[in-house]
């Protein structure tokens, strides 16, 4: 099993006992209520593994990724990458978000160059590297376009190229394909698999889609509702290289999807108490992270 929560030897990323707490202000109460978003989350991920994380809404998936990215400080536990403790954001991790977050005043080329500028790579080299990754995501010819001239799928390719260009060790992807239409999504999934095959980055991929998780990942981590922790880790031993077309025709794929679905569905049912979920919704609006970098 490539991913587990015990064995730390030879792991690229080690997450240990991560905990995140938010403080919520209830109307009429002076004292802040403690709200545990993430609890004893431990995971060891070997180099080059593709890990997908699925879980019910609000289980702390994105919180987890923000912590790994170094954007939010956790309330407990530790993260190490190649044995080094993570203390803040750094170019050793690439972060890709659902909303692309491209700089609209920069052309495609200059967007992809951004991380290289932070890395203080000379201008000429920057352009060469950026073009290589623009080519990798299939956007050559679009170097001088602005993001508003591109479709959603193309924008996400730019975001992927931008994250790959500065050569991070790890790619953190927070529901990257959730905002594009279903067909574009499948194309992007296939392309991501190809890119991953070429670059062999370690990937942590958060998604709402079980099918997507199973298609892409070596292992799918299923999380419990809040406080989020690991419910189960499902190994996906489907042969690679994988493509949407092949996977959908395979019986093994369906069985695994079904298994993950049951793991998730089970807890969503037990979580479905109207009073609780109603309360949770109004609470969620007032959440403030205890520490934001």
């Amino acid at each position, binding site marked *: 099993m490539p991913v587990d929560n015990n064995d730390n030897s030879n792991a690229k990323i080690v997450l240990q006992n991560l905990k995140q707490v938010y403080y919520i202000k209830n109307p009429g109460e002076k004292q802040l209520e403690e709200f545990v978003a993430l609890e004893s989350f431990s995971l060891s991920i070997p180099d080059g593994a593709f890990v997908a994380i699925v879980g019910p809404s609000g289980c702390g998936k994105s919180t987890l990724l923000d912590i790994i*990215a*170094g*954007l939010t400080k956790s309330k407990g536990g530790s993260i190490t990458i190649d044995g080094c403790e993570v203390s*803040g*954001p*750094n*170019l050793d*991790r*690439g*972060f890709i*978000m659902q*909303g*692309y*977050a*491209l*700089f*609209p*005043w*920069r052309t495609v080329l200059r967007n992809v160059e*951004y*991380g290289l*500028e*932070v890395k203080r790579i000379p201008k000429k080299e920057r352009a060469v590297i950026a073009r290589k990754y623009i080519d990798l995501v*299939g956007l050559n*010819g*679009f170097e001088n*376009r*602005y*993001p*508003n*001239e*591109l*479709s959603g*799928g*193309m*924008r996400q390719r730019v975001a992927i190229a931008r994250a790959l260009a*500065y050569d991070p060790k790890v790619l953190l992807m927070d529901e990257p394909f959730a*905002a594009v239409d279903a067909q*574009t999504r499948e*194309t992007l999934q296939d392309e991501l698999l190809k890119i991953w095959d070429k670059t062999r980055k370690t990937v942590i991929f958060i998604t709402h889609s079980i099918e997507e998780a199973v298609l892409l990942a070596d292992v799918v981590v299923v999380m419990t509702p809040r406080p989020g922790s690991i419910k189960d880790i499902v190994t996906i031993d489907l042969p690679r290289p994988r493509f949407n077309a092949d996977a959908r025709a395979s019986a093994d794929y369906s069985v695994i999807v079904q298994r993950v679905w049951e793991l998730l569905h089970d807890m969503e049912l037990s979580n479905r108490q109207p009073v609780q979920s109603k309360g949770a919704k109004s609470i969620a609006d007032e959440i403030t992270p205890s520490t934001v*970098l």
Partner: protein
Amino acid sequence: MRKNDIDIIKIPKKYKQHSAVVLLKKVFASIIAILIFLALWELSARLKLVSTPAFFPPASKIFLVLGEELISGKLWPNVAISLTRSFMGFFFGLAIAIPLGLAIGWFKNFGILVNPLLQVFRNMPTLALLPVFVMFFGIGELSKVIVIMWGALWTTLLNTIAGVRSVDPQLIKAAKAMGTGSVRLFGSVVLPASLPFIFTGVRMSATFSILILIAAEMMGANSGLGYAMFFYQANFKIPQMYAYIVVMAIFGTIINFVLEAVERRSFRWRDESGTT
């Protein structure tokens, strides 16, 4: 997804040949309303539809007088001095408003600290301060430049603050995730993201600088467009008075036109939201 998807549409040649005609039509469409207005003015003045015809000379007469002022050389010195005053006030205003706005928007505590003061100052009628400025800076050019600066800086200041504060948090998050430090974050994300806001403020400031200029010149000056207009009104040279009003309108329109053109060219990326 491939290149030809968003290739720019090529206009067939037979339509291209008529582009001169298209341009002519456009120009005509943009001035037709003005022409009709002038025609109605001319007509109602000639037919003496207004009870005091002396106050209401025909449009042609106004333009004739304007031509005379131009040829006799009386117009240009007034335009030059007014331009100088308003540009100086405008640029000094920007020189204060943009850096201050960036600081207020970026440093939250500084913003909280100075906000009450800003609210009080902002709501002071600009021209009410002219006597104060005259007291401190004399009756000469300086007090006029300062009152124009005061009147012009507010829209740019407020827009700059709003621009900095409305930067898409996702962009900041993306930049931070790439290890961007706060100096680079400001220069490479916050500043470019707020530029369109700042520029809108600058355009409005230009308009204000002209408004305040005219009022200041009417209140106390011996040269400039506002002074000339006021002078002719007092001496009952009504066509001349109107001629100067026309000059002011042209003046303001040209400045706004130029700034809008610069805005369009500079912010091509902003046609629609490029972030989501």
